[in-house]
C-alpha cells in the first residue's frame, strides 16, 4: 500500500510534462509538443501520471501500458531522451520537467505509442528465432531430452527478454542503420545457438547474422547493455555470437 509519510507531503511537486503529439492518421496536424501540469503523488510512476493526464486533462493522449509492472514490455518511451519502460520509472527520480517522446526506430501508432510488435515480428521471421528441428511431427507424449540445470537456467535468463525495443532505441548502430538486427535479435540468436534442441549449426546462424546487418554490424556502443530494463547480459551475448561467427566457415568467401 502506498502511504504518504507526513513529512513528505510538502515535498511533492507540480510536474510539467512535455509530450510529443502526432497522429499519423491525421497528417494535416503537424507533430508538436504539448505541455501538461500535474500534481505529483507519492510513489507515482509515469504509468500513473500518464493515466491521470488522460483521465483528467486530455482523453486523446495515446500511450501503451498493459501489465504496468515491467513484464509486458509495452511502455517503452523516451523519458528526457532516454529509452526506458515508463511503468518502472518513478517521478521522484525525475526532474520537475519531464519530456516524453516515442521510441525511435519503430513505426509510430500515435503520440507515445509505437508498433514494436511489427518490427519484432519482422526480425523474428528474418532471423528465424525458433527451435529448428528435423523432427517432422513432434511427439508431445514423448519425454523430453534432459538438459543440464546450468544450461536451462542460462536459457531461461536469456528468455527473459520482453521485446520492449529499449535496446534498439538506445543503439547508435540501429539508429543509423535500421536493418540492423539489434541486441534483441542477436540475444535471441545466442539463446537458440546454446539450445541443444535447435539443430542449426553455426554455419546456419552465419547465414542470418554473419554480416553488417547482423553481429558484425554491432559497433559496441553498449547502450543496449546499460539500458536493458531486464538487465540482460546483452554485450556478452553479442560478443559470444561474434566469436562463434568469426570461427565459422573457413575461407575468404
Amino acid at each position, binding site marked *: 500500500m502506498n502511504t504518504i509519510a507526513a513529512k513528505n507531503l510538502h515535498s511533492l511537486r507540480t510536474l510539467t510534462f512535455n509530450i510529443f503529439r502526432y497522429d499519423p492518421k491525421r497528417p494535416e496536424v503537424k507533430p508538436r509538443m504539448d505541455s501538461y501540469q500535474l500534481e505529483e503523488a507519492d510513489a507515482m510512476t509515469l504509468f500513473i501520471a500518464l493515466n491521470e493526464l488522460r483521465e483528467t486533462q486530455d482523453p486523446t493522449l495515446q500511450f501503451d501500458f498493459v501489465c504496468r509492472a515491467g513484464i509486458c514490455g509495452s511502455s517503452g518511451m*523516451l523519458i*528526457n*531522451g*532516454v*529509452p526506458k519502460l515508463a511503468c518502472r520509472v518513478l517521478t521522484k527520480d525525475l526532474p520537475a520537467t519531464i519530456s516524453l517522446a516515442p521510441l*525511435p526506430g519503430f513505426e509510430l501508432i500515435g503520440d507515445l505509442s509505437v508498433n514494436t510488435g511489427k518490427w519484432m515480428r519482422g526480425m523474428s521471421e*528474418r532471423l528465424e528465432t525458433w527451435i529448428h528441428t528435423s523432427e517432422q511431427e513432434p511427439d508431445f507424449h514423448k519425454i523430453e531430452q534432459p538438459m543440464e540445470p546450468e544450461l536451462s537456467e542460462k536459457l531461461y535468463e536469456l528468455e527473459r527478454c520482453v521485446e520492449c525495443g529499449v535496446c534498439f532505441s*538506445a543503439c*547508435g548502430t540501429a*539508429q*543509423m*542503420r535500421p*536493418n540492423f538486427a539489434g541486441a534483441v535479435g542477436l540475444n535471441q540468436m545466442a539463446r537458440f545457438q546454446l539450445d541443444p534442441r535447435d539443430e542449426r549449426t553455426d554455419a546456419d546462424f*552465419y*547465414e*542470418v*547474422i*554473419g*554480416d*553488417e*546487418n*547482423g553481429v*558484425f554490424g*554491432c*559497433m*559496441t*556502443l*553498449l*547502450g543496449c547493455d*546499460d*539500458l536493458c530494463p531486464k538487465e540482460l*547480459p546483452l*554485450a*556478452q551475448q*553479442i*560478443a*559470444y555470437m*561474434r*566469436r562463434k*561467427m*568469426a570461427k*565459422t*566457415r*573457413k*575461407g*575468404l*568467401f
Partner: protein
Amino acid sequence: MIIGTVDLGRPTRLSAWMDIVQGVTGLFLVVFMWAHMFLVSSILLGKDAMYFVTRLFEGELFFGRAFPQLVSMLAFFILTVLFVHAFLALRRFPTSANQYRSLHRLIQGLKHKDTTLWYAQVLTGFILFFLASVHLYQLISHPGDIGPYATSDRIYSERMWPLYLIMLFVVELHAGAGIYRLVMKWGIFLDSNPKTMRTRLRKIKWLITVFFIVLGLLTLGAYMKIGHAHQDAVSQRYHPAIEQSL
C-alpha cells in the same frame, strides 16, 4: 537476405574478416604506438639514451653501421597497417545527413558515456587519417633525421610541434577508447564478472590515456627545450658523450 527489392545474397566470410582485421590492426597500432611513446620519451633520460635508441632502430647494433632505410621500411609498414585499419573503420562512419542527425539526437538525448566515447573515437580517427599520414611520410622520406638534435630541430625550428601536440591528444584518446571497445566487443577477459570488469577496464583505460598524455607532453617539452637551445645550429647532428671523449 532480401532488403527492399534487392537480394543481397548470402552473407559471406568477408564480413567476419573485415571485423577481425579491423580489430587486429587496431590492436597492433595501439601496442606499437605505446611502445613508440616509451622509445621517444628516452630523451627524458638524456640525449645519449635517445641517441642509443635511434641507433638501435637503424640497426647499428646488428650490422655494425646505421641503416636509416630500416626506419623508412618500418614507417612504411606502419602506414600500410594504418591504411588497412582506416579503410575498414570507414565502414563504421556515418555517411549521410540522416545518419548524422539520428546519431546526434541519440547522443544528446541518451547522455551515455560509451556512445559519446564512440563518437569521439570516430572523430579522432578521422583526424588521424591526416596527422598520422604526415608524420609517417616525414619519417619515410627523411629516416636519417632522427636523433637528439635532428628530432628537436624538426620539432622546434621546422615547426612540427603543433602537429605532434594535437596528435598526442588525438591518438591517445583514440587508442584508449579503441582498446577498451575491442575487449568489450569480443568479450575477452570478462567472463567471470563482466559488469565489474567493464568498470575496472574503463578506469584503467583512462589512467593509461592520461599517463601517456603526460609522458608525451613531458617528452615534447624536452625536445622543444633542446630545439630552442639548438636553433642556431640546425644542420648539426648529435655526437654522444662517449664519442666526443675519444
